[in-house]
């Protein structure tokens, strides 16, 4: 087996392992579904996994780094290190379609597409926010409203369904 073939195999195995590393705060998603694994590279020092953090202050980032390294080590894929790459900034558009489906099934309304350049039009007087109509992950009704612009983690907002009366979380588009 040539060196190149061996490296390709190692990279492919690493991606498979990364599919099993779950986000500690949204365990419905793997770090691959979330779109934060940007690249897996091999050099003379071993494997380099490039991660892009979701939010500046997301406390899960360090846990994810550790989980990624533990999983790679457990799979016996040799020396590995994680590098954080900030630019381009993570966007919820990088969450895979599969990931969005998993979010919905888990009970979190997935983010819609981010508007042009990520700029959200500033609307004041947003007491009844013209927020996007979300589909309730519980009963699939579209009769929902935002309860809170912020939620239990940096990436989420809180909504409620006016049909089944259940609250649910929404992964904010960013």
């Amino acid at each position, binding site marked *: 087996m040539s060196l190149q073939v061996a490296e390709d195999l190692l990279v492919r195995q690493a991606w498979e392992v990364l599919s099993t590393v779950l986000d500690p705060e949204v365990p419905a998603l793997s770090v691959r579904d979330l779109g934060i694994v940007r690249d897996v590279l091999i050099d003379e020092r071993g494997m380099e996994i490039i991660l892009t953090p979701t*939010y*500046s*202050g997301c406390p899960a980032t360090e846990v994810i780094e550790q989980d990624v390294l533990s999983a790679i080590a457990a799979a016996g894929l040799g020396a590995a290190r994680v590098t954080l790459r*900030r630019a381009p900034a993570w966007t919820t558009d990088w969450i895979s379609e599969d990931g969005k489906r998993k979010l919905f099934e888990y009970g979190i309304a997935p983010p819609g597409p981010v508007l042009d350049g*990520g700029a*959200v039009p500033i609307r004041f*007087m*947003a007491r009844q926010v013209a927020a996007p109509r979300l589909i309730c992950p519980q009963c699939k009704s579209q009769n929902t409203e935002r309860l809170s612009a*912020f939620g239990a983690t940096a990436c989420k907002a809180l909504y409620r369904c006016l049909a089944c009366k259940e609250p649910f979380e929404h992964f904010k588009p960013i």
Partner: protein
Amino acid sequence: MTASIQIQRTPDVQYLLRVGDTCLILGQRLAEWCGHGPVLEEDIALTNMALDLVGQARAVLTHAGKLAGPLDDQKLDEDQLAFLRDEHDFFNITMVELPGGPKDGDFAFTVLRNAMVATLLKLLWERLIDSKDLELAGIAGKAVKEARYHQQHAADWVVRLGDGTAESRRRMEAALATLWRYSEEWFQADAVDDHAHATGLGPRWADLRPTWTSEMNAILEDATLSAPKASAFRSTGKHGVHSEHMGFILATMQSLQRSFPGGVW
């Protein structure tokens, strides 16, 4: 007690620390609301914003630490910069150090300050995306998205309270009368800003003033409030000369690291 560290006060270091320290100290102030918000949603909102701000501060301080060491080949890390600097080596704008928490302030003061500072930071991050300092540009690309959300949320509350009940309006007017004059400091030109502009590190803050003013006026107009007249008062936090409140906030923020040097979670 752990001895304080010294930093190099070069223009680049000061420019970066103005941004990083402003995020850090406002994050610390907002964290005071944890468990004390007027309603649960706002408790969560204020601490979420604190988390974003501290995250932004961590990134900027880590970056500044590469340049700030007292010896040219010595790097300082984010914790050393946050917890082992003395007051005169912090360069945050004075407004963020003013007490406004649940014990000594009120919610109107907090949301108005958030709106004013988030508007400033949003405009700043938007420009820093084009910084010649690629690390800073990368931090800005992430932070601008967070700052936009903070601005929108805080502005909604300014409108709601300003155009609200007699009591909420009274409080918002009082907050405006106290806070507005502290924004003058931000837009005073100086050598640090000129250097950043000349080297492509970032914009002169003075250049952000027209947009900041028009965005704030739009918010205040919706809130049926108007900006107070310009004041001759000039705070000086971004030069390292702080209000009497700064020492107290540092005492709280730094006590653990000073008492248990090198302690980590």
